[in-house]
């Protein structure tokens, strides 16, 4: 029972003007090292809240959260976050943005050249070497998101937390980045938690899919093990019976068991 990231009996209550709002209750989730876990659910189901709790951006009202055996108290560079809207600092170049993160983690132990090298390698990993010295406003949305991923990876985090990382991108760019993310994860053996509302994305990328019930007081509804061999090929999987079965399972959960009328 020694999961890498462990959530036990986690509940989250927000105090709003109209009284307390229970966003999450009884969330139990154990994630192994090197595992890729997606959290999927309708909007407002608290999936981002789960991620923010692991990131340490929010403090759980009840329950315990552990990362590598330590209690999560506040944010830390051991849990790198990739935000949906890339959140790059517009006054820093791509290298500068990545370097800011690198300095936080390796500033005490490494020289400036070593850290610059790390930043460049992270950008190389996402195929952005040509944009090293460009500013965020000079590159496309997909490239910005790749810089965001490079920034997270450069910190060599224990866990990579992604909050709908490709949600704001067009379908072709999204597919491209998903493929890239899969090969990066295979190479770095990263532990990833990704929030998504895209069923195909969840099945394609994940080892397990955590399906959340609708809020308020949302919780983990079902957990689906995606037992597809890696590396996964999106073209080959399109006609794969197992893939379509998993896809169907998720859709069934979302639209049959926990259907939500359009808000």
């Amino acid at each position, binding site marked *: 029972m020694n999961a890498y990231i462990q959530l036990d009996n986690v509940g989250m209550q927000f105090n709003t003007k109209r009284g307390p709002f229970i966003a999450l209750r009884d969330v139990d989730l154990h994630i192994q090292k090197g595992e890729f876990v997606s959290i999927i659910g309708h909007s407002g189901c608290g999936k981002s809240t789960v991620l923010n709790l692991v990131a340490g*951006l929010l403090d759980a009202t009840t329950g315990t959260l552990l990362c590598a055996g330590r209690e999560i108290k506040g944010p*830390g*560079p051991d849990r790198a976050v990739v*935000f949906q809207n890339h*959140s790059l*600092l517009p006054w820093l170049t791509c290298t500068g943005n990545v370097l*800011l993160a690198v300095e*936080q983690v390796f500033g005490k132990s490494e020289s400036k050249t070593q850290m610059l090298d790390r930043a460049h390698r992270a950008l190389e990993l996402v195929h952005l070497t040509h944009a090293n010295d460009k*500013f965020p*406003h000079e590159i496309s949305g997909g490239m910005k998101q790749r810089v965001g991923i490079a920034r997270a990876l450069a910190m060599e985090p224990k866990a990579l937390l992604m909050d709908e990382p490709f949600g704001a991108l067009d379908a072709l760019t999204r597919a491209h980045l998903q493929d890239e993310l899969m090969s990066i994860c295979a190479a770095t053996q990263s532990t990833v938690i990704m929030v998504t509302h895209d069923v195909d994305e969840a099945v394609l990328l994940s080892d397990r899919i955590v399906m959340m019930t609708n809020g308020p007081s949302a919780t983990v509804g079902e957990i689906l093990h995606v037992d597809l061999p890696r590396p996964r090929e999106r073209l080959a999987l399109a006609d794969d019976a197992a893939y379509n079965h998993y896809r169907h399972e998720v859709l069934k959960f979302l639209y049959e068991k926990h259907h939500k009328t359009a808000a």
Partner: protein
Amino acid sequence: MSTLNPGADRLKAIARSITPPMIGLGLFILLWALVSANTPTIPTPGVTFTSAVELFSDPFYNKGPNDMGIGWNILASLERVAIGFGLAALVGIPLGFIIGRFRFFNDMLAPIISLLRPVSPLAWLPIGLLVLQKAEPAAIWVIFISSIWPMIINTAVGVTRVPQDYMNVARVLNLSEWKIVTRILFPATLPYVMTGVRLSIGVAWLVIVAAEMLTGGIGIGFWIWDEWNNLDVAHIIIAIFVVGIIGLLLEVLLTQLAKRFDYDAR
């Protein structure tokens, strides 16, 4: 035809952008000529122009402390504005950061700022004269106190408007307070700070004329007062133009400078 000739097109574009301001200026001078034709004490545009040519043909003469060229007077005023404004920036910008960053200081200082900000700058002059004993530092004090508010307020607003995304990055990366200020707050707030600086310089330049009228010595404000005592109305009108043109130049200069610091406008 003209579409085949880019040179002619450009000439047309220039003519289109220059014509309205030229008509405006022309009407203004016409109005001035009409007023001066009916009011014998107001010099005509022609007389004023001749007087200005004479005045600016030797702007830097020095015939003792009470009779110096207009160039010296302008420089003296600019120097006072620079010192008063510089001191205000040194105090106001950091103070604005503290107020914007820490709720406690905001709540503590907001009532004082709200109370003092609407006070006419010249109301501070007696206090300055009383404490500083001399006219020169008192004038600088008036510039300081009148130009500090836009910088405090704009900086503080800028800090509170830093997008939450950037602050989330700071939190996730666990940046130290020093790094948050230097790497995130300062660059994110810079456009607001520059707006404050621009407004402050404008106020400072407005106030210097009035302050110098009261403190005397050398400076464009006192020069106007002096020419009023000499009943040289043409010189007063020239001074009004000079003050206006320098104010405009300062504004343009700072707008250009602000553009360079605005990461959004790039």
